[in-house]
Each structure stands twice: as structure tokens, then as C-alpha cells.
């Protein structure tokens, strides 16, 4: 399925015939010699060359001979021409001598500290010195030394004397990330990588520079001196931090994750990932639920698996038809599917929802209509080729950082135009040279409608009508009435591809798996008898076993528990007597207070969790489950592409959620299957993607954002990539590279709020306040931006979310 044919027409390319080491090949015109050699399996040594960076021809390691040219030429910078006769070091004495000479030069000032260098054992310089280097050094002079290491950021450390000046890191910063704060300084043998005074290398992608460094010059605070490469067991994995879908490599040393690297997936993350994906894995260690727990006399105590399974099965069976399931957005698709199946078969309910965030009925209908169970697309490759991409309610660098990299690549390579409907002109929009449509939070629906039929939208409308145009919308739009309806209408009116970009890694997978009140796996509607029959057939049950009434969303379940407690009799909707909650954090909910009370009040609560949290401390039964690194599974990225992985920590005895549910179902004598990842995946893959009848797109009228009274502003907010999220715990160096926690507003807004001269501002709601440094920036007038969940700024905790009206007062300067 990941290899679904892609709708691009294949253009014939002009080819040329060249000979490499006496072998004739036909290759596309304009290809670099070094790439041609690679295709032929001929390895030309190199340091500065990187296929995703512009050629620089600085290291001179890849010198080869071209017939008719007296001097050796760099293979990394020369393109092939018809009839070219190329001789690499394999057949040319000139090339061989040139490479040996360059290698000798490279080793001059390089310290012989391989035994203590992190790179030792996986070092291109070390490897090539073995193959191309001289057995004995002729250099008797004093080596150049530098004090070491220096911090180019809290996370990235630089040993200048190991550097070979290949400029991969500086070119990455400039060309790929667009954060050119890492530069080469000085000249000659004193040339060195460095940063400006008091200007650290500030990039969400800084860790990639370590990975592409061909020597041990760049290391991370996290990994430095922690391991030898040959002590590591490596596993290809997928990233659990967002819906970008990065392929990773997880390196485990004696049962402990020591390092994560971006893994090469040309269709998705290419060679890159973000710093959160690279460095945020220490959460797996502390605060874990280690054994099953059962509540006795009001206190949780350690229990055996059979006891806990019995207790859970008994309590849940008693609440059959009156139980709710809340799964959160972090589960693998197989585990989410297990909950979806368990809810229907074991609990007889459709009251299941993965959305532990701002959500709503319009969104549910939108997802059912436009996203759930559909095939791949739009894809990263579509972004690569798009003439125009419209962003709405999505801050790519913070919320899906690989989308940002891909957009930037397209902007640089073929002049992709990016337009953004956003309350803030963010740094990422500047780096994408995007046109900024200043839009007050809550006015996105109106803005999208403007494109369809407003006077200012003509240019965007024409742009979106071009073949290949893409609209990307973020999950924030669920909180803006009419926005998703407008986005669907805009896509329909223009033919543009519409991509929904959730923030969490598990959301798209949970959606496809049927963890929503109105949907079964594969986007099948619970109200559709034929769809129910298809699912029932896969599950091996009669189709009338499946509940047919649309279930309740997470906020409806929470509300129902609280009203159940208030009123004894249930009329139309059954009371909620039991809750099954997977690994989610209560504080992520926009109605965390009500959620907590519901957890307190629900008669029976089962928690399946990796960590102790607010749910487990209120639960009657707690099951310990495996973190992503300890299990097999898969995530579905925003494209709809399945990213399957095996367990990285093979020594772990932790059990995945799906298997736990199967054991509970077994005790309940419900036919569920074994719940192992292979069978869950096989069932799910047979159900999604599907071509069943979809719900109609929502048609909610757009409404304008409220006009705040004097002294109030509309809140624009989202989670920064690096913030106080649970999965980033335990990594202070990473946290130190987070962007500043501050309130940003336009000069005009600051003036009208009377805070223009304030050093800090306080944002308050009826439930509390936060005080932040004030920064003036490009924000839509009448709005203030602040991070949703950063240190000292937990906005959900004061009941504020995107589009809320908050009171703004100034603090003394």
C-alpha cells in the first residue's frame, strides 16, 4: 500500500552515453559523475558531497580523471556529457594519486583521537583513511589545535580540530533548514565552523548536522562519550512524535535507547528529521507503570496479571453497552484498531474517540467524508511538484517539521509558491517566502470562503486551480466553526488536493482504525448496514452484534458521566458506567477539569498506560503497556502512508495494548483473536483503505471571530515543537534549544491594549492567568500569540485555547 502508484506522468529524459572505468552506460543528461558511479556500484571517496546538498567541490577527495582534461576533476561537481570517458581511482593512476594526496592532506591536522571519538567505528574519514590513506604519516610538524569542545547550541558540540571543512553542516543549515546561524569563519588552516557572538545555532533540525558530519567534529550533549558504535543494536523504526512519519534508526545499548538517527526514506523524510524526533526518547525510562495494579480499599496495589485481567473483565462486562473508550492520539494503528474492535465486540458501544483535543461534530463529519480510510495522498511528492500550497491553521515547523523541509525544498528548487492563512507571520513562513494572509484566530472559515468568492481571493483561487495545487490544513481548524466545511468546499471548487495534518503520530491511524463514534475501520460508517457486515465478516461475528447507533465523542462521554452522577435515571442515552482509557494525558484535554471530575466519578475505570499519570492514579485497574520502542506496530502519517516498525528494545517484556485487550476479552469470553500485532495488522490491512460510501462533506456556515472588548484579545496559540510535552521529558539539552516562551502581538494591538511599553503581559481568563515577556511581531491585529504548552505557559490549564478571548494587561518595564 505504501507503494501505491503515484499520479505523476513520467517524462522521457534525455540520456547520454558515458564510459566509467571502461564500462559504457546510458544515464540522464546532467547527472553528476559521482552519482553515475554510485549507480554502477563504483564508490568514489568523498566528504563534502551529499546528494541533498548543492555541490561545493571543496574537499577534493573525489578527484577522478576525464579523458582530454589534463588535471583531475571533482566527480561531485562535474556533470556528464555525451561520450565522456571517466576513469576513477580503480583504473586511473592520476585519480588514485590525487585521492591519496588529498587524504594525506586531510589527515594532517586531524587529531589521532579515534579511540575516544564518538565517530570512531562509523567514521567516513577513518574508513577512507584505511582504504586510501598512506600507511605511514610524513607530517612531522605541529598539528593545529583548538580548545574543545565549544557549544554551538545547548545540544550541539563542536570539536574544531576534528573538522575537515567539508561545509556539510553549514550548507545544511543554509540550504535545507534555512537557519544560517552556523557558518565557516576565519581562513586557511584556521578556518573553522562557528556561530555569531551570543547567537547559538538556533534550529529545530540541528541534529542532522551531527549525522551528516563525515568526521567526529559535531556531537550531541546527549550521546557524547556514551557508547561505541559496535556496542549498539540498530533497528529501523518510525517516529512517534508527530504525523510527519519519519523513518528513524533507533540504537539500543544493552536494553537502553542510546541514540536515534534519521533514516533514509526518499519518499518521506529523505535523510532528515527534527530534533524532537532525534533527541526526545528518554521519556521511555522513568515513571513507568511496571506491573498491573488493582484498587483495593481506595488504594492501588500491585496485582498479578490474572487478578487484574479478572477484575477488569468483570467490571467492563458489567458495564457492557454503557462503557466509553478514550484512546488519545499516541497509539499505533494496530493498538488503536484493537480498541476500536474491543469497544464494539467486548463493550457493545460506539462511544470511542481518539481525540483528546479540541474537536467537534463538524470535524468528525469532515474526517469521515474526506480522510478516513482513503488511499495515500496528497503526499510529500505532491508537495515537491505543486505550483502552490495553501496552509491554513497549520504552522509547519512546529507541528509537522518535515512538511516544512519539503515545502522549503520545493520553494528553493522550483519556486513553489506558499500562501498561509495564519494569525502569525512565523519564522517558517519567512523561510518559505510565503505570502501571509493575516487572519484573526477564529476567522479562518471566513478567510477560506473569501478565496472562493471574495474579491481578494482571485489570485489564490487561480493558483489553486493549477494542476497539482495542494491545500494543507491543521487539526486546529476543528475549533473554528465552518472552517473544515470551507476547506472542503474550496478543494471541491478548485480541484486542489486537500491534506489534513494532525499533530500526533497516532491520529490518522486511529481514524482509519475506527476509533471514532461514527466510524468503523476503513472509514466505514457505523450507520451503514453493509459496512457493518463487511467488518463483522472480518471479525467473525454476526453483523447484528455491532452497535449501529452513532456513539458519543470524548467530550460527550465526559459530559455524560458527569450528568449520570447528577441524575439517576437514563433516558435516551445510556449512562456511562465504565471507562477504558489508553495512554493519554488529562491536561492535554481542552476540558481537563471536567475530564478529571469524570474520571473521579465514573464507577469503573480501567487504564492501560505506559506511565503513571492522572488517569492511572484514579483507575480501578491499571495495565502496564509497552512504549513504542518496546513493541512492533505502525503509525499512519499525514499522507496516509503506513510506517511499520519492529521493537527496538528486544529485551523488553512489556506488552502492547492490543495484546492486553485480547487478554481481557478472553476472560470476558468475547471472540477477539490473539491481539498480537501481526493478526491485528492483517485484519486492519484488509479493512483499510476502502472504497465504501463516505459521509457527505460537512456544510457548516462560517462565522466571524468575536470582536474582543477593550482590554481583551483573541488568542492565537499552538504547541511549539519543543515544549513541556510528556514525551520530551528527561532531556534538558533539548529543552534548552526550545524557542522562547513569549507573548507576541502587533505594535497596533499593543498600543490599543495600552501595553506597548510593558516588559511583560499577563493573559487571563476566568480560570487563571499566565505572565510572559512581551514581543512585538507580525500578528493579526486584535490577536495575541503565546505557546500553548510551554514552561510557564500552560494555557489549557487556564481554560484558554486557540481562538479564546483573553484579557491582556501589561506589567511594569
Amino acid at each position, binding site marked *: 500500500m505504501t507503494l501505491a502508484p503515484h499520479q505523476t506522468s513520467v517524462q522521457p529524459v534525455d540520456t547520454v552515453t558515458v564510459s566509467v572505468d571502461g564500462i559504457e552506460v546510458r544515464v540522464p543528461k546532467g547527472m553528476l559523475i559521482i552519482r553515475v558511479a554510485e549507480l554502477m556500484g563504483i564508490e568514489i571517496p568523498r566528504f563534502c558531497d551529499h546528494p541533498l546538498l548543492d555541490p561545493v567541490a*571543496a574537499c577534493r577527495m573525489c578527484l577522478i580523471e576525464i579523458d582530454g582534461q589534463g588535471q583531475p576533476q571533482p566527480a561531485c561537481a562535474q556533470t556528464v556529457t555525451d561520450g565522456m570517458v571517466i576513469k576513477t581511482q580503480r583504473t586511473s593512476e592520476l585519480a588514485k594519486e590525487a585521492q591519496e594526496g588529498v587524504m594525506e592532506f586531510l589527515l594532517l591536522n586531524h587529531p589521532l583521537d579515534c579511540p575516544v571519538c564518538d565517530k570512531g567505528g562509523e567514521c567516513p574519514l577513518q574508513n577512507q583513511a584505511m582504504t586510501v590513506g598512506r600507511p605511514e604519516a610524513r607530517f612531522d610538524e605541529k598539528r593545529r589545535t583548538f580548545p574543545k569542545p565549544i557549544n554551538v547550541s545547548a545540544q550541539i558540540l563542536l570539536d574544531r580540530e576534528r573538522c575537515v571543512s567539508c561545509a556539510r553542516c553549514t550548507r545544511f543549515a543554509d540550504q535545507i533548514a534555512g537557519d544560517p546561524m552556523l557558518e565557516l569563519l576565519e*581562513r586557511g588552516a584556521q578556518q573553522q565552523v562557528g556561530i555569531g557572538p551570543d547567537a547559538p545555532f538556533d534550529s529545530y533540525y540541528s541534529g542532522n548536522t551531527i549525522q551528516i558530519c563525515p568526521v567526529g567534529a559535531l556531537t550531541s550533549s546527549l550521546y557524547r562519550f556514551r557508547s561505541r558504535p559496535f556496542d549498539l543494536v540498530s533497528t529501523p523504526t518510525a517516529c512517534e512524535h508527530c504525523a510527519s512519519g519519519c523513518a528513524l534508526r533507533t540504537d539500543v545499548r544493552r536494553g537502553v535507547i542510546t541514540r536515534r538517527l534519521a533514516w533514509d526514506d526518499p519518499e518521506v523524510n529523505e535523510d532528515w528529521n527534527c530534533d524532537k524526533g532525534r533527541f526526545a526518547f528518554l521519556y521511555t525510562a522513568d515513571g513507568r507503570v511496571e506491573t498491573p495494579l488493582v484498587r483495593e480499599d481506595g488504594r492501588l496495589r500491585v496485582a498479578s496479571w490474572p487478578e487484574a485481567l479478572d477484575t477488569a473483565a468483570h467490571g467492563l462486562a458489567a458495564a457492557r453497552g454503557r462503557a466509553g473508550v478514550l484512546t488519545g492520539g499516541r497509539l499505533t494503528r494496530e493498538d488503536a484498531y484493537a480498541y476500536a474492535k474491543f469497544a464494539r465486540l467486548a463493550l457493545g458501544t460506539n462511544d470511542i474517540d481518539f481525540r483528546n483535543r479540541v474537536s467537534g461534530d463538524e470535524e468528525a463529519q469532515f474526517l469521515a467524508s474526506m480522510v478516513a480510510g482513503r488511499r495515500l495522498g496528497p503526499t510529500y511528492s505532491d508537495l515537491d511538484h505543486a505550483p502552490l500550497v495553501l496552509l491554513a491553521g497549520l504552522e509547519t515547523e512546529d507541528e509537522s517539521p518535515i512538511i516544512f523541509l519539503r515545502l522549503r525544498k520545493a520553494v528553493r528548487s522550483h519556486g513553489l509558491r506558499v500562501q498561509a492563512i495564519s494569525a502569525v507571520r512565523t519564522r517558517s513562513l519567512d523561510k518559505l517566502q510565503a505570502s501571509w494572509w493575516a487572519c484573526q484566530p477564529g476567522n479562518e472559515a471566513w478567510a477560506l470562503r473569501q478565496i472562493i468568492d471574495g474579491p481578494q481571493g482571485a489570485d489564490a483561487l487561480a493558483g489553486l486551480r493549477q494542476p497539482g495545487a495542494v491545500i494543507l490544513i491543521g487539526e486546529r481548524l476543528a475549533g473554528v466553526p465552518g472552517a473544515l466545511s470551507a476547506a472542503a468546499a474550496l478543494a471541491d471548487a478548485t480541484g486542489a488536493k486537500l491534506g489534513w495534518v494532525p499533530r500526533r503520530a497516532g491520529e490518522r491511524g486511529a481514524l482509519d482504525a475506527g476509533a471514532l463514534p461514527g466510524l468503523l475501520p476503513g472509514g466505514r460508517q457505523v450507520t451503514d448496514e453493509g459496512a457493518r457486515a463487511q467488518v463483522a465478516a472480518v471479525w467473525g461475528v454476526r453483523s447484528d452484534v455491532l452497535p449501529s447507533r452513532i456513539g458519543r465523542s470524548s467530550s460527550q462521554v465526559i459530559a455524560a458521566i458527569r450528568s449520570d452522577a447528577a441524575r439517576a435515571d437514563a433516558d435516551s442515552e445510556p449512562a456511562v458506567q465504565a471507562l477504558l482509557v489508553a495512554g493519554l494525558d488529562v491536561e492535554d484535554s481542552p476540558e481537563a477539569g471536567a475530564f478529571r471530575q469524570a474520571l473521579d466519578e465514573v464507577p469503573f475505570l480501567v487504564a492501560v498506560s505506559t506511565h503513571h499519570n492522572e488517569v492511572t492514579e484514579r483507575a480501578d485497574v491499571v495495565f502496564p503497556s509497552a512504549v513504542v520502542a518496546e513493541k512492533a506496530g505502525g503509525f499512519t502519517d499525514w499522507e496516509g502512508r503506513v510506517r511499520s516498525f519492529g521493537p527496538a528494545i528486544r529485551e523488553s517484556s512489556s506488552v502492547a495494548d492490543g495484546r492486553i485487550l485480547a487478554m481481557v476479552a478472553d476472560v470476558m469470553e468475547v471472540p477477539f483473536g490473539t491481539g498480537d500485532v501481526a493478526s491485528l495488522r492483517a485484519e486492519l490491512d484488509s479493512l483499510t483503505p476502502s472504497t465504501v460510501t463516505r459521509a457527505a462533506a460537512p456544510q457548516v456556515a462560517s462565522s466571524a471571530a468575536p470582536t474582543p472588548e477593550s482590554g481583551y484579545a483573541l488568542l492565537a496559540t499552538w504547541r511549539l515543537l519543543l515544549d513541556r510535552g510528556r514525551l520530551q521529558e528527561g532531556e534538558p539539552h533539548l529543552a534548552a534549544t526550545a524557542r522562547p516562551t513569549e507573548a507576541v502581538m502587533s505594535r497596533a494591538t499593543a498600543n490599543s491594549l495600552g501595553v506597548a511599553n510593558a516588559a511583560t503581559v499577563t493573559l487571563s481568563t476566568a480560570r487563571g492567568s499566565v505572565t510572559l515577556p512581551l514581543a512585538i511581531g507580525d500578528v493579526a491585529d486584535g490577536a495575541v500569540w503565546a505557546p500553548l504548552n510551554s514552561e510557564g505557559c500552560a494555557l489549557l490549564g487556564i481554560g484558554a485555547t486557540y481562538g479564546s478571548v483573553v484579557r491582556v494587561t501589561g506589567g511594569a518595564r
Partner: protein
Amino acid sequence: MTPLTPVITAHWDVPDYFTLEGYKRHDGYRALPKALAMDPDSIIAQVKDTGLRGRGGAGFPTGLKWSFVPQNDGKPHYLVVNADESEPGACKDVPIMMANPHALLEGVIISSYAIRAHHTFIYIRGEVPQAIRRVASAVREAEQAGLIGDNIQGSGYNLRVTVHSGAGAYICGEETALLDSLEGRRGQPRLKPPFPATHGLYADPTVVNNVETIANIPWIVNNGVEWFRQFGTEKSPGFKVFAVSGHVNRPGIYEAPLGITMRELLDYAGGVRGGDGTVKFWIPGGSSVPMLTADHLDTPLTYEAMAEAGTMLGTGTPMVFNSTISVVKAVTRWLEFYKHESCGKCTPCREGTYWITGVLDRFEHGAGTDPDMKLLEDLCANITGRSFCALGDAAATPYPAAMKYFRDEFEAATHTPVDETYPSAASYLFTELAPR
């Protein structure tokens, strides 16, 4: 004896020649109206026909370079004057800018008109503030006189001229590094292709020419092809501002036809000064060209004859060394220069110059070895043709040339410090300042 042919230098003895008025009094700005009445392409053709070769060192035909600029491409074009004269021994562009800034500017206006540029940058070496001030004030004078600006002399042609100061890097004399520096980046050479003619300053078509090259243009326009070609040889036509320095009695600027010999220039310069009165070795044009000896004094100073002799005409600024000079020490100083000025971009130049200077330092202290001589030879071979730009190649030339003629001195430096064989004091040019 070949006569001197003062053209650019003809009126340098006029005290106010550097002013607009002084220059005009001596037929200055007479080529300009003539050029502005011509079709730009015919100016390019004329320059092509003269066979004028770039005076910055490489000797690339100027008219040919201009003709590489794509015309009517709708893009802005730029002329950039390379006035970053920094090579050891080269001292001709700075005197031209000091004595004759308006000839440069007249050449700039005509050349820009020819290549359809409307903005010219003059990139002047940062260590010569006097030249920067002089050219800048000449630009102001010309602007006030309507020679630079909008609708020059009613021709409808507009031109802006910006004088830019370098910041002290020899590499910025390399044309693409100069362009990077001019754009505000770190001065390091660019990957070619694309070449500046199509993707130069701000990625637009650009011609980069040396000061002396541009200063030739007014006279070419005024006097024509035949006149120009009466000087010099078939392959090296024209005259040249030779700057003779080193151990000569009258160091200075001598403008003569290409093809004059070093022996003749030496005569004009009053013969060898100091030592035993003979030439020990000399370089034709800057430290980047291999040295020659007294055996080559009758070789014509042309691009082709110099190449035949295993060296290059370079900037045409011969430097003469008498018998008191140690070749080992001279080579060491040159290499120290290249080590200091290596930009660091490519490995062979960055590391090679670092290594070579270390080894040469041992020779200077009498501690070189036989294998070291072979090592230096290898290192130079490993730099030549393998570095990113010509700076690396230049750094690899002094040693092999020195070994060709003076191997014995390196052999002596395996046991005796150079200062003992060639005491420094004996070489001082100004004996009254020398320690006694």
C-alpha cells in the same frame, strides 16, 4: 633598445592629472562621446580586434570575455573592476588609480556601455585607503560633470559607479571570490560553471576586468585597432605598465610595448642594485609565476614567450633579486604569504600551504633533509591542478622553480641555517637604515 611608450602613464608628471580638469586638459574624456555614438557591439568588436589581453595576470582576451555576455536577455548586466591588487611584487593598479583615476573611469563608462551594464563596481583592495579615496573622489567629480549618472552627455545611457573597499583578503582578487565578497559574503571562490559572464554578480551577467585593462580602453577607442597593434607582438599586442621592483637602482613604473626584454627594463631601471651587481633570479609578474634567472634576461616579455620559458607574464611587474638573496628564504616568505591568504575552502591549498611552510621553516633553520626535498616536491604536485582555484596552483609554483635552478641552496640548508649563508643585512635596500 626598445623605446618606452608612455600612454597611460604619459602625463603622470602633471601635478593635477588625477583631477577631472587635469585629465581633460590632456585629451581626457575625448573617447567617451565617440564611444557613446557607436553601437555597443562595434565597441566589443573593436576591442576584440585589438587583441587586448587581460592585464590582471591570466591574459584572457578582453573582447572575447565581453562577447560571452548574453545580450538582450532582459537581465541587469554588471561591470566589476578588479582593483584588489595584492600579490607580492605587483604594484601597478594602485599607481594607475592614484595618478590616472579618470582614465580608469572613462574606460569604465565605455566598457559598461559596450556590455550594456548600468551599474559598475570598482572593488579596491582595502589596505590602500588613499587609492579608494582618490577613485571615490574622481567618481564624484565625474558625477558632477555629468559623465556618470543618467543620460550621460545626452546619449540616453545611464550608469552608476560604486566604489567598494575590500577587507584585506588576497583571495578576493580571484574574480568569483571577489563577487561573493561584493555581495556581502565571505570571500571564497565559486564553483564554475556557471561563469560570471552568465551568472556573476547577483547571479546576473557580469564582466570582471583588471584596472589596467579598463584603463586601456579610452586609448583604443580614440586611436583604433591599427594604432594599438603597432605595439607588442601578434599574440601579445599593445603596451604594458611594467612595475619594476626589487634590487634595481631606479625601481618604478615603465610603460613599454609587450615584447621588451627584462634586460632592457633593467637598463631603464638603472641596473641591479647591491650584491655583486648581477641578477640572481627574477619573477616576471608577481609571486604566483615561477622564477627565472639571468639566463632569461633576453626573453621577450610577452604572454607566449614567458609561457615558453616555463613561467607566465602574470601582472607584468618584474621583481629583481640580487646575489645576496637566499632562494630558500624567498620561497619560504612567498609560501608564508599563501598560507596566510589561503581561504580555507579546499583541502590541498588549506592543508598543503600549512604543511609546506612547516617544512620550509626547517630548511631556513638548516634542518631540512634530503627526503624533505622529495616531500616538498610531492606536496607541490599534490596541490597543482587539484586545488579549487588558482591560489593553490600559485602556491605550488615557487618551490619547483627554485629547485630547478637553485637545488644547491636547498642542499646547503640541510646543514647550515640560511641566515649564515645569506645574512639578511647584506640585502637591505636602504643601507642607511640597516643596522651596522
